[in-house]
């Protein structure tokens, strides 16, 4: 009996590393603390009613944001650990397998559980407000997407202390990721964590396409829509076409591992190259999925902080659409060196270079939006200014990588690592941070402190260049990615040390940002007008934070930058007519998304540990939840006019 318990525990818990015991203890302590606080302050009911069951896009956005910042922390700690291991030759800080697990979770978390939810946070926080809608098209589905993401992310994250982390790389190429190469539980956690959250992402994509196409305020023709919403549309369309491929690919890998199928295995006629093709057919569009919304964010910020209409609106829209189409025709550039024919390589080299054209055009358009404007360097604009040179260089190294014959010398080296960090940090992270700074006052009603933010900005930026520029040279000097150690004889020590120092500076930047948030919660400048940046689009026409129904009256849109024009009109004494208030139709909260997602968690956990009984419980729960939802007909309610009046008076009292 005792022996079997011990055997079980050895399989169930990850053992043998002080870092992991430390994590065990801190996870236990934090969980106890959370439970204690919630119980002590009698907040359980509040948590359930206000957050766990909410279908309000603003609250869902905030939850995405919190989760993604936590994941940024986890991914960042992974990065720091790796850089410590690589700081000098022959460091014995991490074991090979531990290092391999860390770079795997770093990549997986940063792309799928940091960038994606941070993007969805911005979708949710902004899009309905920007197009004059009261919520997204499917609020229930939206909540379900969030909880699927969160439980998927938790599934991957617990692998650190239970069962073992995945360690076959963030895209898990087989046959290494097959049972023959990775017999441990980690790979199953990886598959189910991504699978569950991926279904949520697909649903979010569908949700926002319908929201944007069908729920814009009257008068807002597509070509009068703010550019951020355009970017969300293009990203969502890309999600719709890309994510099913990911679902299938991971499902096939799962079938290989669990049912002994032979899609990608070494034996039985399996073909690992098929996996590489499939995963990149999703993976490359995925990169553009995360960067397109950043482009949208910059367009909004540049116009607002230059106090000027965005330059070349039509070009901007066209460029984004071209990017999202082209992104499906470049996947082979991730493996030019897999023996493709010259015809294939030449074709994909050209398409890859071609995608840089619309991207370059966007940069010109941003610059000329600033030209003859009046530029203010508040934090959102500061990050945008940091983005431009960083993304330019990152884009240029991308074009260099696209040159197929030269790519044979960069592939899988630190040159590549430096490139994609430059576009993903310089483009995506800088963009999302800019967006968070920009829309934070709208969602929370106060501004994030400038001074601490500036410290954060400079640490991030200087740290970035110090961290990643040396890596280009390391790559050219033959340092391949994913090596956990190297010898003194390579001559890579100095550059690696500099790179590690840069990583620490970025870490300091992040700490400044955490401090900035903590400080601003109590002392940040309060937003009383709802239009703290002198904005241009509809979200700035309502109070901060917005009431649950967003718009008391559905706005009637006439122009691009409609709110800006309305303000101009007001200065000229023209006041637009205000229609009568009407009761507002709103969706009801529901606990089903949370419950159903937790059943998905059980399914993933059950498959990971081969506990079929748990899988069965999970599936019964999932189908039960779906049936329960299908049979619920009481899904909406109305806010009476009196209540709207009261709320509006309270929120706008000081200003109007």
């Amino acid at each position, binding site marked *: 009996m005792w022996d079997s318990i011990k055997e079980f525990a050895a399989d169930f818990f990850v053992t043998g590393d002080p870092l992991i015991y430390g994590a065990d203890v801190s996870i236990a302590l934090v969980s106890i603390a959370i439970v204690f606080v919630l119980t002590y302050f009698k907040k359980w009911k509040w948590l359930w009613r206000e957050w766990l069951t909410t279908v309000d896009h603003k609250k869902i956005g905030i939850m995405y944001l919190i989760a993604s910042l936590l994941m940024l922390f986890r991914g960042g700690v992974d990065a720091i650990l790796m850089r410590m291991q690589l700081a000098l030759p022959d460091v014995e800080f991490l074991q090979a397998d531990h290092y391999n697990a860390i770079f795997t979770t770093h990549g997986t978390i940063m792309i799928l559980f940091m960038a994606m939810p941070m993007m969805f946070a911005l979708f949710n926080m902004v899009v309905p407000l920007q197009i004059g809608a009261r919520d997204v098209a499917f609020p229930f589905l939206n909540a379900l997407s969030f909880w699927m993401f969160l439980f998927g992310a938790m599934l991957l994250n617990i692998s650190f202390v239970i069962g073992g982390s995945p360690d076959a790389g963030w895209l898990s190429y087989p046959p290494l990721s097959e049972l023959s190469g990775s017999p441990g539980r980690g790979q199953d956690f990886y598959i189910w964590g991504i699978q569950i959250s991926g279904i949520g992402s697909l649903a979010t994509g569908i949700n926002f396409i319908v929201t944007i196409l069908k729920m814009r305020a009257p008068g807002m023709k597509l070509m009068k829509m703010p550019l951020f919403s355009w970017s969300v549309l293009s990203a969502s369309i890309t999600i719709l076409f890309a994510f099913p491929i990911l679902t299938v690919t991971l499902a096939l890998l799962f079938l290989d591992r669990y049912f002994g199928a032979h899609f990608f295995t070494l034996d039985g006629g399996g073909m690992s190259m098929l996996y590489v093709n499939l995963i990149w057919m999703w993976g490359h569009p995925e990169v553009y999925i995360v960067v397109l919304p950043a482009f949208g964010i910059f367009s909004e910020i540049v116009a607002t902080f230059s106090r000027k209409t965005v330059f070349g609106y039509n070009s901007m829209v066209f460029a984004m659409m071209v990017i999202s189409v082209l992104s499906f025709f470049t996947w082979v550039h991730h493996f030019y060196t897999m*023996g493709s024919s010259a015809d294939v390589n030449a074709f994909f080299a050209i398409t890859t270079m071609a995608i840089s054209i619309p991207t370059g055009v966007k940069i010109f358009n941003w610059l*000329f939006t600033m030209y003859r404007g009046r*530029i203010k360097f508040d934090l959102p604009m500061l990050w945008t200014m940091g983005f431009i040179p960083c993304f330019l260089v990152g884009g240029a190294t991308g074009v260099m990588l696209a*040159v197929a*014959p030269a790519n*044979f010398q960069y592939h899988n080296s630190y040159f590549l690592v430096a490139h994609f960090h430059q576009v993903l940090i310089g483009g995506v992270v800088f963009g999302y941070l800019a967006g968070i700074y920009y829309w934070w006052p709208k969602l929370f009603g106060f501004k994030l402190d400038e001074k601490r933010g500036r410290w954060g900005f400079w640490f991030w930026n200087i740290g970035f*260049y110090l961290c990643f520029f040396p890596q280009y040279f390391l790559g050219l000097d*033959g340092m391949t990615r994913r090596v956990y150690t190297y010898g003194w004889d390579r001559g890579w020590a*100095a550059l690696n040390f500099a790179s590690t120092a840069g990583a620490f500076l970025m870490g300091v930047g992040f700490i400044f940002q955490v401090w900035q948030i903590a400080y601003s919660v109590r002392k940040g400048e309060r937003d009383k007008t709802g239009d703290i940046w002198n904005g241009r689009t509809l979200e700035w026409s309502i109070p901060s934070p917005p009431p649950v129904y967003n718009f008391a009256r559905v706005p009637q849109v006439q122009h691009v930058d409609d709110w800006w024009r309305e303000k101009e009109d007001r200065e000229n004494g023209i006041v637009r007519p205000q229609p009568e208030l009407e009761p507002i139709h709103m969706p009801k909260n529901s606990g089903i998304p949370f419950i159903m997602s937790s059943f998905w968690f059980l399914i993933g956990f059950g498959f990971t540990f081969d506990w079929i009984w748990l899988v069965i419980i999970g599936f019964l729960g999932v189908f039960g939840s779906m049936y329960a939802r299908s049979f619920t007909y009481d899904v909406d309610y109305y806010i009476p006019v009196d209540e709207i009046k009261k709320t509006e008076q309270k929120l706008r009292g000081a200003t109007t």
Partner: protein
Amino acid sequence: MKATHKRLRMLGIILVGVGMAVFLAGCGNPMVLDPKGQIADIQKEMIWISIILCAIIIVPVLGIWIYISVRYRDKPDNKAPYEPNWSHSTKLEVIWWGIPIIVVGVLGYFTVVATYDLIKPPKATANVEPLTIEVTSMDWKWLFQYPDQDIATVNYLNIPENTPIQFVLTSNTAMNSFWVPQLGGMMYTMPGMAMRLWLQAEGPGEYLGMGANFSGSEFAKMHFKVKSMPQNEFDAWVAKSQDEPAKLTRETYAKLAVKGTVPIQTFGQNEPTLFASIVVKNGGHHGISIRGSDPVKSNQQSSGVKSEAETKEVSGSQQPEQNQ
């Protein structure tokens, strides 16, 4: 505020200075930009062409970026023009759709030409009989077989200088990638597939080679030395190696295939059908069609992997035991 700015700027300048110093100390002449063979030469050229073409766009844009952000700052005494509604100019937009299209066109031209060039055997030594080496990436070591010399090595390579080397690559487990930066770019080693890669060294020298695609625990240890030497020296080494008592047989291969790292080894005798059987066992059941670079036209079958017919025979008669 002003003081903070100054301090920040100082900090920035110091850090950038330190960074530059480290660069200059650290990068010297990176391998890829210090090629020792014709293939790597062409690739270096392509790298410089792409750097220059990118710089044509990036440098002016960075200039414009600095100029605009200084000139149009929101300061009370700024006299620069302010046109809040100026948002369209067909002429300007045509220019900046046009410039990248032209640059990409030029770069695309060079790229396509080089892409077709590099899959062919090196031109400069077209008259020299190529040497074939069969490469298998294993957990976590490299097996190099010299079918025509009837020898095999583990974790080191010797090659004759100024001779086109035809590498035929495969893997017996996870994917890896075969890379000798100073001789030329890499190529994946894939289970169940065979890839061809041409490399060539100019003059004698010793170069670093490595596995470039993550393949599990001790992947970081999968580096090896490549020594190029004059033909007579190479022949002498081959002759000496043939006298080595260790022989590459299916049994020694099975021992070698056990996961782990090993020191360099030399086998005085090669197992000629082994390479093909590794490919076949791992899913290449249609016989071996080699992907990647072109073969030498005249003697497609003479050197290199055993032909398809022989392969089939191997797979039919003696299916090697499963690997782990």
